[in-house]
């Protein structure tokens, strides 16, 4: 019994000394680290909006944004770390949007894509295509943004992140309603929507009757035969069953599945 107490006391004492010294070192290093990170962020923000003379962090519904100010006037908004699902995890993009809701700068802040393939999304020349795009643009690979062959999924992740940032900033600061999936608000009728599949645009017509999706017709696609049919057979039926666009993808036809789902979302929400 005495032995156990001695063991515990010695171990606890060592842990206490360790914890105390770590707290002391952390007190010294944390301000230095935070100051450096703030400097890096400030430098990056300054590159996005060179006209701004100061930046102010804002918290909207738990999301972090920055307002770019010039002489007290808001001239742009920045959403750091907007995310899109890439090949190896989320791709994080910093997006700056002006007061008209148009992108003025997009930079990949971090990603875990495949070196040599997916990391081409860091290319500033490719990212420059996003500049000038706004809430009314599709911001989709193959539609108004060029793909980089060999990095389709990574490019798509960046486009998703930029579109997300544009919509978030529009909703938070510019009074532009976000595209939302709300069947109850949709009047009866037939709506056309576009999504991006593996081979290009997929156009669908969605018929809504009594706040229910009753029919989904594929109008146009250029997907690969042999794969496409699997998605074409399963996804529209699944969406009608679920009355929701977010259904499971068909294995072997993931891109086509996502394309159909995006098109249906586009038809109903936008």
């Amino acid at each position: 019994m005495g032995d156990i107490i001695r063991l515990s006391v010695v171990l606890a004492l060592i842990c206490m000394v360790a914890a105390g010294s770590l707290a002391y070192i952390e007190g010294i290093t944390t301000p230095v680290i935070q100051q450096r990170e703030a400097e890096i962020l400030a430098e990056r923000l300054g590159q996005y909006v060179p006209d701004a003379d100061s930046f102010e962090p804002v918290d909207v519904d738990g999301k972090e944004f920055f307002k770019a100010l010039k002489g007290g006037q808001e001239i742009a908004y920045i959403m750091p770390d907007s995310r899109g699902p890439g090949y190896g995890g989320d791709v994080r993009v910093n997006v700056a949007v002006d007061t008209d809701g148009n992108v003025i700068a997009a930079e990949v802040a971090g990603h875990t894509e495949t070196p040599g393939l997916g990391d081409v999304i860091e290319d500033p020349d490719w990212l420059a295509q996003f500049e000038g795009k706004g809430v009314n643009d599709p911001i989709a690979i193959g539609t108004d943004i060029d793909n980089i062959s060999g990095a389709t999924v990574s490019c798509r992740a960046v486009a998703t992140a930029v579109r997300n940032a544009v919509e978030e900033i529009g909703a938070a600061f510019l009074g532009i309603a976000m595209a939302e999936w709300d069947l109850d608000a949709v009047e009866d009728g037939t709506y056309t929507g576009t999504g991006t599949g593996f081979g290009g645009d997929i156009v669908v017509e969605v018929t809504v009757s009594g706040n229910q999706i009753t029919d989904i017709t594929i109008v146009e696609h250029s997907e690969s035969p042999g794969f496409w049919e699997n998605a074409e057979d399963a996804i529209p039926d699944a969406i009608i069953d679920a009355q929701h666009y977010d259904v499971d993808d068909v294995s072997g036809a993931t891109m086509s599945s996502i394309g159909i789902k995006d098109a249906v979302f586009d038809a109903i929400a936008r």
Partner: protein
Amino acid sequence: MSITKEFSKGIIKENPVLRLLLGLCPVLGVTTTAMNGLGMGLASTFVLLCSNIVVSLLRSVIPKKVRIPCFIVVIATFVTIVDMSMNAFLPDLHANLGLFIPLIVVNCMILGRAEAFASKNSLPYSISDGIGMGVGFTVALVLLGGMREILGAGAIFDYSFTPEAFEPFAVFASPAGAFIGLGFLLAGMNLLSKKLKLD
């Protein structure tokens, strides 16, 4: 037993990487360049030296039954100190070594020296052992890192010296090159130890 002997044994005779094959995870993982090898080597040396000092000082206090948890707490503390200090004051090196710094905790070379040496020997010998082993570890990492940087990038310590026409062996910059490079280093060490009749 002499202090100089405890120091020098770590460099050739009982080199932790090339003779004892301890702590190979960081050896293979970070040695893409000589600079990374040097940084990792020095960080490990610092942790090894500090843990040897503390373990040696506490060797009569630490009960036999809980010695391994005690050693690990001591080692983990110093690793966290290195991690935080490097992040604050050497951010570029920290960005390169990233994931591997916390992994120094489980580098079996450090726990091995605490268990096999520092917990049984007095302070001066333990300091000498820690520095010697650390230097041996660092030398091995710089050798492997330098070899991979020369072959894989045509440079040494970021100084490019090869002519334009030299096409670097991309394999040496990749993890596979670490295994190949370590194989050659071990072969060279085996040759040397035969010559010196170490076995």
